[in-house]
């Protein structure tokens, strides 16, 4: 209960929280909306614009004060409606408007502009200004994404303060002074903060405009849909503004638990794919291998898919059919895809990229904003600045406001390594020795020994670490930092728990967490929008919905009863195995939903070419779709009702905001349920003809869904953790599922001795370790469609440390070949101080350079060794 004090506004007494800003107190207690410009609830008080003036009683004398800077205390008296207070606010507005261009008719902000609104409510009604207005630059780009109109700017500093206080990137400043003051960036250094677009949202005038959406909407003409962003696992809340079947603009929608008031620039600006002209609009069929894809009806296409998949399962066994989904699929789509595979095809060959290969903790984070309560934040194999920029804002906030320190364990010196704390360079594949060294050093601290001696496994761990080699000063510092932390928090990314070392890595990291006393605050940072959700839905070869292992008979029976169909008891193939099996001729038919293995290099392409029958369900004619026999046109997240589960297992709605009347494309859930109906009808027919059919026959009625909400209703029955999460219950801010309700097995809370995996052989031939890095603006399918993406994303290159470049006598920009046993890429070299010696870094999802060409598998991050050679003629 906050400490309440009594204040008086216009002779009425109110109880308000002690120390609150008067603007907040007046709004909450008295319902008085004191007008502001520079003041913003998420920025520190400034008091510059003088819009919020009220009178305050100062020992009997009434004086004008700014309500946005006064913190209330017992007995304070204010006048808001007094003639002088009203006049003062009118006068401030009169001043603000003197040099404002008043080009409202063509201003993007028009209709949702605080300056217009305040002028209406608090303006003087006339102006005596008869002088020439001060002229400044009207179209001044501060980045490829944002344009600044310096004439409209009223110097409230919100943009500057946002970049300073939240981004910690003071890339905008006030230049000159007095009436010449302008907001500007440094010449040649445009604003490149990853969440820069938020300054457009908080600009109280039309000074900052969105270059993607500029002049494309009038605020009163658009339809607004509360939705979420699907570019990463944060699931930031957004509002989609649409008009005449086009997505005109995306703005941030506040959700304090998830994204505060902010979204990142990828979420805001990179949505052109939804309206892209090359979207698939009709099903396509290739009548014979080598032929062309031709448009077809849904009936024909779905009939063909059902027939061919059933045929393959019939003739070659159900294990000859596999499905690859994606962590970008909605819960509904993932659920129906696995249901279709398990009940109709009868195969557990179900996976997605980053699925079975990742030993993910399905709980994700306990709560995103817990990072702000930690005093030491460990980032292991995660690069939030590129991967989850909004989470990164909270981490920066923790660092700058709460003096939190960062312990970064990463192959690259990531951007957050600029903060106080310790950076430990850790090559892919060397996680176990690194974590072990850290444990070893921590065990030398009295306090750590005291608190962990009682843990089971203590003696074994101590014995196993006895022979640890001398450690680097970084490890030493890291151990000291972690041992001294009062409330540490560990976040680890998928890179740490992917591939063959996943178990060992996780166990070694858990030792660190136990010794640091934060075994209950070690969280897995899932990467993609629905990484958590598709696992909950069982889009995995060896796990059912709700994470029960496929071997769990009771769980199987429960689902079989719900679905009215049998399912196979044997675990299926994971993604790598499926693609290998396809090349080997064992997997004959592949159903790809939002999955594009052909884009991941020659291996993926070979698998699709080898398969008898490939179905691709996607937005675009992807590399895989170009090899498919049937292409089913799906719709984007903007065009269908769906739910997604974010990194803190918050299930959130993304309702339909858009439809394209000229397209036959359909939502994934609808395609899948229609396919299920066709299949069920088809096999029922078939069964009457041939009693010997071994196929399980599905019932068409179990595929009757009237809408996505109906699918979600079934999910609530199939996945106990989701049992209360109906569409209505989720509301606009979503709900977390309770961690305790999941059948997932949690890692044991015990210390364990973890042996380091053997070092890779033949270091001479392959002297470097490959690092696959993330960058926010990549050139994946969805980003390619944005005109601005090409400007903001870095072109493909291979990063090398300055030391290695010098040793190899290579200069920045030369063309090099990076090769591994799996393949090679030819790329320009980029000397990058963030890259550590002995490693080469290639970013994922850059056009023309699928890093997966080099890696041992599509998801194993553990240290592919590569060689580097300069290309002739460069």
């Amino acid at each position, binding site marked *: 209960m906050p400490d309440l004090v009594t204040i008086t506004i216009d002779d009425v007494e109110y109880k308000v929280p002690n120390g609150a800003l008067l603007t907040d107190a007046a709004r909450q207690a008295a319902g008085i909306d004191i007008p502001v410009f520079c003041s913003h609830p998420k920025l520190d*008080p*400034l*008091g*510059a*614009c*003088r*819009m919020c*003036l009220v009178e305050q009683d100062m020992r009997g004398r009434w004086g*004008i004060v700014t309500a946005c*800077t006064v913190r209330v205390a017992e007995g304070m008296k204010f006048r808001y409606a007094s003639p002088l207070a009203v006049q*003062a606010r009118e*006068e*401030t507005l009169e*001043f*603000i408007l*003197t*040099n404002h*261009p*008043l*080009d409202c*008719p*063509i201003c993007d902000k028009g209709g949702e502009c605080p300056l217009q609104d305040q002028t209406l409510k608090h303006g003087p009604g006339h102006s*005596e*200004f*008869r*002088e*020439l*207005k*001060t002229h400044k630059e009207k*179209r001044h*780009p501060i*980045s*490829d994404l944002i*344009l600044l109109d310096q004439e409209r700017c*009223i*110097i409230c500093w919100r943009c500057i303060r946002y970049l300073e206080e939240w981004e910690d*990137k*003071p*890339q*905008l*400043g*006030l*230049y*000159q*002074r*007095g*009436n*010449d*003051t302008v907001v*500007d*960036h*440094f*010449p*040649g*250094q*445009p604003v490149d903060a990853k969440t820069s677009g938020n300054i457009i949202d908080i600009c109280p005038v039309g000074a900052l405009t969105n*270059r993607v959406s*500029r*002049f494309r909407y009038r605020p009163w003409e658009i339809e607004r849909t509360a939705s979420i962003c699907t570019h990463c696992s944060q699931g930031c809340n957004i509002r989609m503004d649409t008009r005449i079947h086009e997505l005109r603009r995306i703005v941030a929608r506040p959700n304090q638990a998830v994204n505060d008031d902010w979204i990142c620039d990828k979420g805001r600006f990179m949505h052109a794919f939804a309206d892209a002209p090359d979207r698939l609009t009709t099903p396509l069929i290739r009548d014979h291998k080598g032929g062309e894809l031709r448009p077809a009806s849904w009936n024909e296409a779905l009939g063909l898919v059902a027939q061919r998949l059933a045929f393959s399962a019939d003739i070659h066994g159900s294990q000859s059919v596999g499905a690859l989904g994606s962590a970008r699929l909605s819960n509904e789509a993932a659920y129906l895809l696995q249901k279709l595979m398990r009940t109709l095809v009868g195969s557990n060959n179900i996976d997605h990229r980053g699925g079975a290969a990742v030993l993910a903790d399905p709980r994700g984070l306990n709560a995103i904003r817990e990072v702000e309560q930690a005093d030491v934040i460990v980032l292991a194999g995660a690069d939030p600045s590129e991967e989850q920029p909004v989470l990164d804002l909270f981490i920066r906030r923790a660092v700058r406001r709460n003096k939190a320190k960062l312990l970064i364990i990463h192959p690259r010196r990531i951007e957050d390594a600029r903060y106080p704390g310790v950076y430990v360079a850790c090559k892919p594949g060397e996680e176990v020795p690194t974590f072990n060294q850290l444990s070893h050093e921590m065990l030398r601290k009295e306090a750590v020994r005291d608190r962990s001696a009682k843990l089971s496994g203590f003696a074994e761990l101590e014995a196993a670490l006895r022979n640890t080699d001398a450690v680097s000063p970084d490890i030493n510092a890291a151990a000291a930092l972690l041992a001294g932390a009062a409330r540490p928090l560990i976040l680890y990314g998928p890179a740490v728990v992917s591939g063959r070392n996943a178990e060992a890595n996780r166990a070694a990291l858990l030792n660190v967490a136990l010794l640091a006393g934060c075994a209950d605050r070690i969280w897995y940072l899932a990467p993609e929008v629905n990484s958590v959700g598709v696992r909950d839905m069982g889009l995995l070869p060896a796990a059912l919905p709700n994470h029960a292992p496929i071997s769990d008979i009771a769980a199987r029976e429960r689902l079989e009863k719900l679905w009215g169909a049998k399912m196979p008891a044997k675990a299926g193939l994971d993604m790598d195995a499926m693609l290998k099996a396809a090349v080997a001729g064992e997997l004959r038919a592949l159903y790809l939903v939002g999955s594009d293995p052909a884009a991941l290099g020659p291996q993926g392409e070979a698998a699709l070419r080898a398969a008898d029958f490939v179905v691709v369900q996607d937005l675009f004619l992807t590399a895989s779709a170009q090899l498919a026999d049937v292409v089913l046109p799906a719709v984007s997240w903007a065009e269908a009702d769906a739910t997604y589960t974010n990194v803190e297992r918050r299930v959130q709605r993304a309702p339909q905001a858009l439809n394209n009347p000229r397209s036959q494309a359909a939502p994934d859930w609808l395609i899948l349920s229609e396919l299920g109906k066709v299949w069920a009808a088809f096999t029922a027919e078939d069964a009457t003809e041939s009693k010997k059919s071994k196929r399980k026959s599905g019932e068409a009625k179990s595929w009757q869904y009237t809408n996505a909400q109906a699918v979600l209703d079934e999910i609530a029955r199939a996945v106990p953790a989701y049992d209360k999460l109906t569409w209505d219950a989720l509301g606009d801010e979503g709900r977390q599922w309770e961690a305790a309700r999941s059948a997932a097995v949690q890692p044991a809370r015990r210390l364990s001795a973890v042996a380091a995996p053997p070092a890779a052989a033949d270091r001479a031939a392959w002297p470097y370790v490959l690092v696959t890095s993330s960058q926010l603006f990549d050139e994946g399918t969805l980003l390619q469609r944005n005109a601005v993406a090409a*400007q903001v994303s870095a072109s493909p290159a291979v990063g090398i440390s300055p030391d290695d470049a010098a040793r190899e006598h290579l200069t920045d920009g030369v063309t090099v070949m990076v090769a591994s046993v799996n393949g090679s890429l030819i790329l320009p070299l980029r000397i990058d101080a963030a890259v550590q010696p002995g490693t080469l870094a290639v970013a994922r999802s850059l056009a023309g350079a699928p890093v997966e060409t080099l890696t041992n598998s599509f998801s194993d991050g553990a240290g592919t060794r590569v060689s580097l050679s300069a290309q002739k003629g460069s």
Partner: protein
Amino acid sequence: MTLLTDATRTQIRDLMARYPQPRSALGPALEAAQQQLGYIPEQAMDEVAMLFGLDAAEVRAFVGFYHMLHEHAPGTYHVEVCTNVPCMLRGAGLCAEQLKQTLGVDYHQTTADGLFTLDEMECLGSCGTAPMVAVTKRQANWMRYYEQLDSPQRIGAMLDELRSLADLPPEQLPVPERCVPGEQPSGGPYHHGHHADTDTLLARIDLPDSHTLAVYEANGGYAVARAALADQAPAAVLDTVKAAGLRGRGGAGFPAGMKWSFLPAGSYPRYLVVNCDESEPGTFKDRLIVEYDPHLLIEGIILACHAIESEHAFIYIRGEYFFAAQRLQQAIDEARAKGYLGKGIFGTGKTLEITVHRGAGAYICGEETALLSSLEGYRGHPRLKPPFPAVEGLYRKPTIVNNVETISQVVAIVRNGAAWYRQWGSEKSPGFALYALSGQVKRPGVYQLPYNTTLRQLIYEYGGGTIDDMPIKSIIPGGLSMPHLGVDKLDTPMDFESIAAAGSSLGSCGIMVVCEGVNIVQLARRTMGFYREESCGKCTPCREGGTWIEKILERIEAGEGQVQDLDLIERLTWPIERQSFCPFGAASVWGVRSLLKLFRGDFEAYIAQTNPAGEGPVLPVRPIYRPDTGEPAPNLRV
């Protein structure tokens, strides 16, 4: 290729080490870069940003705020002519015209030989020796005031001297002491005087080498501090100052002892910041102390720091006080060498460091919170109060900000006691002050007088009356920011209460005398021009309102005024005064409003004469309401 040499980089790193937080050295570092390069190109800003670990945008924002930091290269000599009111009243207009004609350039232009760049400048603290110019030699670490430029001969002599110095290496340039061209001797303290009983602050300044420690000590210097540190507890010194009722000399007149007692108990470190930004037009008293008796200030600082238990004092001196800063630094070095500063001063366990911090040209930095922003390496924007600096000031530590004269007064007060001090002045304004007299009087200068001295006494007894015995039209009693008083107020005693009762404020004790014959419209326009030029731009009323009033006054002066404009100006002054972020807003309009009140007839007559038809301004039609998507090329300008 980097622009900054290793020497400059080393210099910058040394500067950073001088401050508790390195960012404070940003201004000095940019000055160092400018000394090397002659100006600060964008690349240099970027390089400085790298050295400080700042974003280049922060550095450019800083450069853009301060007038002495140049983004474009000036000529060999940057000749800045003060045209502010005190100089204007003494013929700055003629001086400027003469310079323009002789050099063949206008403001913001450079002569064809690249030797001279001419600019208009705001008050430089030479009001008693007006008109004047400040000359900065590029890349020579040399800046000099040329004063009393009241004849073409003197201007010619100055330019001749500058030409003769153009090719000299920096070390052979003359000492940059103030100079009256063609006169022998050309420098030395400018005119000053005192009441017979109150010669404490200016007693030594006429002695040869008055600025040296030897002369200071030979005349009783440092005895007070030595004794106080040995015998008196900090609280005792503080009590003495409090009992004396010493009022701050920066302008607000806040009692210094009371301010010191606001420091939160037990909170350290504490800082003393001495405000030597003396930029209020018509104020030039601190300069005299710092140039000719810097050890008096140092002794005052030692006493004040003893009283407030501070071990680090900063002297924020306006960048244009180049010679004064040199003298001050020399004096500090001397005192340090003798063990009067540093560790174990006077053989006691006390420590005291004094850091001289040069400003870079911004009037607003005289406001204490803006000064602290500037001293921390930011644009000089005022900060919210509370917290007051005494609680949360420099680097968010308890900080006392006092004016040079205030601190200098402490020496005599501690030596002679509170009762001694209180025998002069009034109950609420006890003691004496330095009055800076300028404008149209025969003997402008600095006078140390008791607080109850009347304006008439100052002007006629000490100042010798007006030039050519012209009748007085108005008096500004406290620096340009304060309202004008009519001639009927001549017998007002110059203490805070009496001047306030007369309708103005004593401010910084800068008294300017305006005689009949001065164009009041021009005076008002030039006054407003100063505040428009120096507004920091943080808050709306000051930024927009000041500009608006200046535009109206410019229009009136140009002959397009209407009588109703006068009502409008008057109306606009109220919200600017009432609603601005800091006291600057009020200060910016008091002068103009008082002129309107006192001399409305003059304004009306001017309008009637220059715009007999009474026509209003003709405004161009703008804007064009068409969405112009013709954005610049996607590549950002470089």
